[in-house]
């Protein structure tokens, strides 16, 4: 039990100083990712999912900055590292897959050049070995005729194939953690299913953990072991995927799940959460969700709930559950 988790994020705060005051985009977010685990990070646009990923790999766009908390990779702090040691971690120990495969590949270099460069930067080998590795990797992510196609430029590949190349690139240095930010959002459903399978299999094979950032609950349900639900820069709920999806506890998660049309149920109306997520400069006092919450109490408007443990592996940031706990204790 003494071995630290692969990644541990403690009370992370990300702020953007602006002329009209400082905006707090991530507000005290804490979570762990265990060895070989797939953690889903879900939330609507503007919830701050991508910022958490960017903060972990040290790629926050200025003026955004980490204003508090710490990020530990195997017990070692990485949020305060200088540019050069951070650059060595990025790619080598933490791989990245972004949403748009066209922008993460350089259009002026062949896939071979990009893969070989990445491999040789992080792994000690010669050109020929790197090339063999690259071909094997492309073959593994499902690119047909990899030995020939490796000499093609990114524009020769279709969207799905490009995302496969990006996955190969992210895994080239055998990282311990892969951060995948909306890896399938730009793809069609039939291709999305293939990419998810490839990502899942290849990470499991290599024992890499994955932080999967997406707005699509379906993708999370198919892929993740645990899921963290983000709302207005704060964690609403975190727990095993099955529990969270089937028995959501936070009122926001409940609303979110009800608002997703499914292939199996047919009710005439979807659950709708009134209003929309607050802007960063207008986050309400207390619980950020209180103006939209059907169960809001006096306390929710005053105090912000912390993550309350619910069972062994689950935490919910909602006052409803503290009351329940107290009742159990007193009754």
């Amino acid at each position: 039990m003494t071995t630290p988790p692969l990644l541990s994020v403690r009370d992370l705060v990300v702020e953007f100083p602006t002329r009209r005051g400082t905006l707090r985009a991530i507000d005290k977010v804490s979570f762990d990712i265990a060895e070989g685990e797939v953690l889903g990070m879900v939330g609507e646009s503007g919830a701050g999912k991508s910022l958490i990923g960017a903060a972990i790999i040290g790629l926050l766009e200025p003026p955004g900055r980490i204003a508090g908390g710490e990020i530990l990779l195997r017990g070692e702090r990485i949020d305060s590292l200088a540019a050069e040691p951070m650059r060595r971690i990025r790619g080598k120990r933490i791989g990245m897959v972004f949403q748009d495969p066209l922008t993460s590949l350089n259009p002026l270099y062949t896939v071979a050049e990009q893969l070989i460069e990445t491999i040789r930067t992080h792994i000690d080998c010669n050109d020929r070995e790197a090339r063999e590795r690259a071909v094997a990797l492309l073959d593994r992510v499902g690119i047909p005729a990899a030995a020939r196609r490796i000499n093609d430029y990114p524009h020769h590949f279709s969207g799905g194939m490009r995302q496969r190349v990006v996955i190969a690139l992210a895994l080239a240095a055998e990282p311990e953690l892969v951060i995948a930010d909306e890896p399938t959002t730009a793809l069609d459903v039939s291709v999305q299913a293939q990419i998810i399978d490839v990502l899942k299999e290849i990470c499991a094979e290599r024992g890499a953990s994955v932080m999967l950032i997406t707005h699509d609950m379906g993708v999370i349900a198919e892929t993740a072991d645990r899921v963290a639900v983000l709302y207005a820069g704060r964690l609403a709920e975190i727990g095993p995927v099955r529990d969270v999806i089937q028995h959501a506890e936070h009122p926001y998660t409940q609303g979110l799940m009800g608002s997703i049309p499914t292939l199996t149920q047919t009710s005439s109306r979807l659950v709708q959460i009134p209003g929309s997520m607050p802007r960063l400069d207008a986050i309400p006092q207390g619980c950020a969700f209180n103006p939209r919450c059907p169960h809001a109490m006096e306390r929710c408007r005053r105090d912000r709930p912390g993550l309350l443990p619910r069972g062994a592996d689950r935490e919910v940031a909602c006052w409803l559950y503290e009351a329940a706990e107290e009742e159990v204790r007193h009754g």
Partner: protein
Amino acid sequence: MADTVLQVAGLTRYFDVSKPWLNRVLEREERQFLTAVDDASFEIERGETFALVGESGSGKSTIAKMIVGLLAPSRGTIAFDGEPMHIQQGAAMRNLRRRFQMIFQDPFASLNPRWRVGEIIAEPIRTFGIASGAEVEREVARLLEVVGLSATDAGKFPHEFSGGQRQRIAIARALSSKPEFIVCDEPTSALDVSVQAQILNLMRDLQDEFGLTYLLISHDLSVVRHMANRIGVLYLGRLVEIADSKRLFTDPQHPYTRMLLDAVPDLALSGRRRTPVTGEIPNPINPPSGCAFHPRCPHVMERCKREIPLSRPTATGTAACHLLEDAPVA
């Protein structure tokens, strides 16, 4: 019983994607055509929601644009309430145009950023002469309230609204000419799920209230399942299957429909075994011979590579697959 609002027959659209003339001469290349929509036929009945689903490049939006008259068909006919379109000119066409409207995907691009919301909504009211003078303002206020905004929002500019609210404005504008038929091209795909739920619920309420008929274009099968009565599945510009919504999801006839259903992530965590999806949509400039789906089809036969399958009647619609000729797919 059948009260057909829209009848589409043999609709086809080519796009010329040839290189410039000089290049063609120097490089000795032929003209190239992309067939975006190939021989599509379907009917939409009054008060129903007919959905077209397909992946990118399947021709969904091209069909939508032809129906609202933003693109001319290369072949085939579209009849609205029995009257053929595209032949009509002037006043008759204008009168017809009032009766159908369109809602687009991107509410950031479909509203003029320099116009106030009130003007955006009032434009069709004035153009079609539905109201005049102070009545226009009253009508705009009423429409804003119908879509769940406030009458005072008329004085604001589009940038003051969120994506979901903008889509509500776009819907108010579409309703302003009192249409019977609305083409909704991916109305919620730019929105978050919780906002999507609000818009889908609104669209349903409006349908009940005003007796609207929708043509819903979407790539999202769960949205389509939630909204549509009947569904047409497009693959590379061809309608491969049309069926009642329930039937399509419980008993898909065409192998492509099955593959598409299998590919949807499973939120119910039923742990079902899915057939792995293979391949990607081929280049539409050089589509595969015969049935366009044959390179990805698990049931491919020799014949599929040669002959384009014709649409055959199924329990609640049609499907275009050689397999259906002899026996249903096992």
